[in-house]
């Protein structure tokens, strides 16, 4: 197999793929960077972006975190008014749109143009039926070995995992926390280092020599790339551009069994992401949680929590035994777990709580062992009125107890 480059360059698809995953990891590093912002580089890139839309350089206002931006006095904030476009509105001329809107338009033009180029190249490399799904689950070099063409493999090995890790797993919880905190529209925001996924996608194609990018587009991509390497979130206004520092710490763990370096946030003794002013988010194994889940989980707080994932995470943190004890659950019955030799099903009655619908708790044990050799216990809520643990387990699969009792094997 030969690559697109000339002599002295990487020539095989294997080499190109290796180079692509290096570029991916380089961008992942930028996206997770906790270094102080490179303020000169940031201000230079934003100034040049303003120039490309015919706007004078802004004054820069640096803040420690997105939360600090939300707390700025109105006169220090960029114009937060959302654009309202109407046919008769004189602002329905691009040159009179707010700076943020014109920057957004310009960025979307760039991305659309590059997408067209990338999509044309993807269309020229059809994927054999069924292979795309398999390729997501195996190391990319194995996917290549199984006949996955390099071009679509680049999407699976670079752009998609960065979007999952950075866009969804890291920036996602921060966006939610920021929006909740701000409680009001604060104008369009760009996310600096968290723009890495889309920047990296085009940058990879470009650096591998697989995408001819015009000088103009290349220059504009460089500006966004420079921001992704230099700063946190930023809010462009007419006169003032507010830019946030990067976080002080980002704690993460690999996503289990993910072959393309995907990760999720996780820290069990403090915020998973924390900024210089102390603002941050708490996340356990990818699930964003309120701080009390880490610091002081109690049955009472768990009962008052509406989000079922948060509730489950909090109970597991507290421990099932402690939870059952604290919540005053009464053991109704136990039974051997069909298909799961040596394990027991335990059915508990839950005290009535007017805030919650009636239910019972079925405590079961996993059929397969964890990496540490233990079997995880898990609780399932089942409707009130079921008195037999086997019938309760059957109900979770829509089966009567006597059918569930015939379960031969659980793994």
């Amino acid at each position: 197999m030969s690559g697109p480059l000339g002599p002295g360059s990487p020539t095989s698809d294997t080499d190109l793929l290796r180079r692509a995953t290096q570029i991916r990891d380089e961008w992942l590093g930028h996206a997770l960077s906790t270094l102080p912002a490179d303020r000169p580089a940031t201000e230079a890139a934003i100034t040049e972006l303003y120039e490309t839309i015919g706007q004078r350089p802004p004054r820069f206002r640096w803040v420690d975190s997105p939360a600090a931006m939300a707390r700025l006095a109105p006169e220090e904030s960029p114009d937060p008014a959302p654009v309202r476009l109407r046919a008769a509105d004189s602002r329905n001329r691009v040159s009179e749109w707010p700076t943020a809107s014109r920057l957004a338009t310009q960025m979307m033009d760039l991305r659309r143009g590059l997408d067209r180029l990338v999509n044309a190249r993807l269309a020229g490399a059809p994927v054999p039926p069924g292979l795309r799904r398999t390729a997501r689950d195996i190391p990319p070099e194995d996917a290549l070995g199984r006949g996955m063409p390099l071009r679509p493999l680049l999407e699976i090995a670079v752009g998609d995992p960065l979007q999952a890790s950075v866009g969804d797993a890291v920036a996602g919880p921060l966006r939610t926390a920021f929006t909740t905190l701000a409680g009001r529209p604060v104008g369009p925001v760009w996310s600096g280092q968290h723009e890495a996924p889309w920047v990296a996608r085009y940058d990879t194609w470009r650096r591998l020599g697989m995408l001819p990018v015009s000088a103009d587009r290349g220059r504009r991509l460089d500006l966004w790339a420079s921001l992704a390497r230099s700063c946190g979130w930023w809010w462009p206004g007419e006169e003032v551009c507010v830019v946030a520092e990067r976080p002080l710490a980002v704690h993460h763990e690999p996503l289990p069994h993910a072959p393309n370096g995907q990760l999720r946030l996780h820290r069990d003794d403090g915020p998973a992401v924390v900024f210089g002013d102390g603002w941050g988010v708490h996340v356990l194994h990818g699930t964003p949680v309120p701080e009390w889940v880490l610091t002081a989980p109690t049955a009472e707080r768990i009962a008052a929590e509406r989000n079922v994932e948060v509730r489950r995470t909090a109970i597991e943190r507290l421990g099932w035994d402690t939870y059952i004890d604290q919540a005053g659950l009464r053991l109704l019955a136990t039974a051997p777990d069909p298909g799961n030799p040596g394990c027991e099903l335990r059915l508990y009655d839950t005290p009535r709580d007017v805030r919650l619908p009636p239910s019972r708790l079925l405590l079961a044990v996993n059929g397969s062992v964890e990496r540490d050799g233990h079997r995880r216990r898990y609780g399932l809520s089942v409707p009130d009125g079921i008195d037999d643990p086997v019938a309760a387990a059957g109900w979770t699969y829509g089966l009567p107890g006597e059918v569930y009792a015939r379960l031969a094997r659980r793994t």
Partner: protein
Amino acid sequence: MTMTLAQLGERSGQNIPDHLERATTVPVIDAPQAQGDLLVIPYRLVEDDVHLPPAQWTAVPPEGIELLRSTTGGNPHTLVADPGTCHWASGGVEDRTQLALGALRTTGPAYLIHAEHGGTGIAPGTYVVRRQREGTGIAGRRASRGRGVADRFGYVHTRVVAD
């Protein structure tokens, strides 16, 4: 065809972790079996609740069919079988409990594989694959549907379990 977990993993392209018993032969049986939050159950045991389509069955391809993937862990439950032996239907399978992912018909051993839960061996026959749910409310005689259904026994609200 009896297979070990390691062989199944190789065949489905999944990395079976070392802490599972990789060298153990996966038993091939025709009884109900659970794999994490999925249940494989012989059709005859649920035929009153489940309607199978006459058509819409597709052959399980060599690389298998991914039946369900968990949202947080990224691991799929994958159905694999020797070419030509196993057919899968999802569209057209009507389950009164709304829990069926689909149904399979196999003339040889078929396997359901999951990187954390291991392997489930399925003997020739017709089976329904169901998801697991939890719920609150007051239990009725018959399982209720989706987001909550009032029946003469009360009101039950359910959600599917994703592990």
